[in-house]
């Protein structure tokens, strides 16, 4: 059978592609954009980071097995929670809310996909698929927390007007919460709507590059889109609900946030 596997670039090919980085540096220099140094550093970082990840993945695939794969996911969740929580400085314990939101979203999503045997329980699958889930959960949890923090600033008077009528914190916060969640989640819904029309998404692109039949590649991509939708909603809603609880004290007062 004719090999359908595409020609993966050799290290020589990688070196040749660095010509394009040189072009970027030359443009920066000619146009006096002052970005030459940064481009060089970025390119070097990409090389070093990916080489490190490649070596680690090689090790995990060959020797680590599933425990190492889940450990890998846990580290990704830790980093993602740190990043997403950092977006909402006005919210007490924002990082903890982000960790829980992302952690539960990733556990549920991967748990369902593995339990239903939609994806294979091998490191080669768990790590890249889990990585996509963590990344989406991080973006939506961060956006949701950020919008929640904004609501506390912008809508304090509306929230307090409801508290003053004897409503519970949950009821008083419902309107800003819903607005925050819609803002955080619309991009995930829109991405799903236009998938394939505007861009060929990463997983599908990767599979096609690796020589997989497009009809097979899209099945994987459909699973990816569905799981990312679920993960986005779980991560955003759970972290925002936790944030909401920390925004009111024992006397059901909206805490003062200082940015």
């Amino acid at each position, binding site marked *: 059978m004719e090999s359908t596997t595409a020609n993966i670039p050799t290290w020589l090919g990688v070196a040749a592609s660095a010509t394009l980085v040189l072009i970027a540096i030359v443009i920066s220099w000619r146009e006096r954009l002052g970005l030459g140094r940064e481009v060089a550093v970025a390119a070097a970082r990409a090389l070093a980071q990916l080489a490190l990840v490649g070596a680690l993945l090689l090790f995990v695939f060959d020797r680590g097995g599933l425990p190492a794969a889940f450990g890998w996911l846990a580290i990704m969740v830790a980093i993602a929670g740190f990043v997403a929580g950092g977006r909402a400085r006005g919210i007490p314990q924002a990082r903890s809310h982000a960790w829980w939101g992302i952690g539960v979203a990733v556990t549920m999503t991967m748990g369902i996909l593995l339990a239903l045997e939609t994806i294979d329980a091998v490191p080669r699958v768990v790590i890249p698929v889990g990585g996509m889930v963590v990344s989406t959960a991080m973006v939506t949890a961060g956006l949701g927390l950020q919008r929640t923090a904004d609501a506390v600033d912008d809508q304090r*008077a509306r929230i307090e007007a409801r508290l003053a*009528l*004897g409503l519970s914190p949950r009821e008083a916060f419902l309107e800003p919460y819903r607005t925050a969640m819609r803002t955080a989640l619309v991009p995930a819904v829109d991405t799903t709507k236009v998938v394939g029309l505007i861009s060929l998404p990463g997983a599908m692109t990767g599979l096609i590059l690796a020589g997989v039949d497009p009809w097979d590649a899209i099945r994987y991509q459909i699973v990816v889109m569905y799981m990312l939708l679920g993960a986005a909603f779980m991560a955003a809603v759970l972290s925002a609900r936790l944030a909401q609880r920390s925004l009111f004290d024992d*006397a059901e007062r909206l805490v003062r946030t200082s940015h």
Partner: protein
Amino acid sequence: MPHTDGPAPELFTLDAVTFVAGGRPILDHVSDHVHEGHVTAIVGPSGSGKSTLLRMLNRLEEPTSGSIRFRGTPVRELDVRALRRRVGMVAQHPAMLTDRIDDEVRVGEPDLPDADVDELLAKVALEHIERERRPDDLSGGEQQRLALARALAVGPEVLLLDEPTSALDRRAAESVDAVIAGLVGMGLSVVLVTHDLQRASALTHDALVLDSGRLVDRGDPAQVTYLEGG
């Protein structure tokens, strides 16, 4: 407005109420009381701590030290939602929370029958207004009165009003004052914050004068020492 004979029972009792924010004392050992059935004005220049004191009465703020009692019970021992339903509040620029007049009245009491909504709107002189209008489109005075109806819908025993008329022109302010006077006539107690005691004095039984967080005078609104805008 007739004063009651003899001392009216104490509605709120303040005992050495102190509030510190950012290392700065906003209220400094304020001790006093608010009488049942009275209109009590808290007056003082801006930054004197009067709004903070008002917000403590329904626990939107908590004293750093000292205590507040409502009908003799420390407010901290009362269920906070129940307290807030008994002690209603209307802000200086009340936020309109819904898209319809009748929904606005029902924010705190979603199951309120139409007849009660009509009655409340009549109390605040808004009986003529179409129920499907957007509250945000009403004039300032109408919004203030709608906010009063919204607060009354949950059946409070006291109303806390923060500068209820200061953002309004004279006619609108008079319409709000007339509504407040009517409510007091029906037995509601009112605590109102104002920087303009002269305007409020016709309504007011007692005035508490704050300056830089300290209670500097109290008593008959015509007699207290208060330098306006000071």
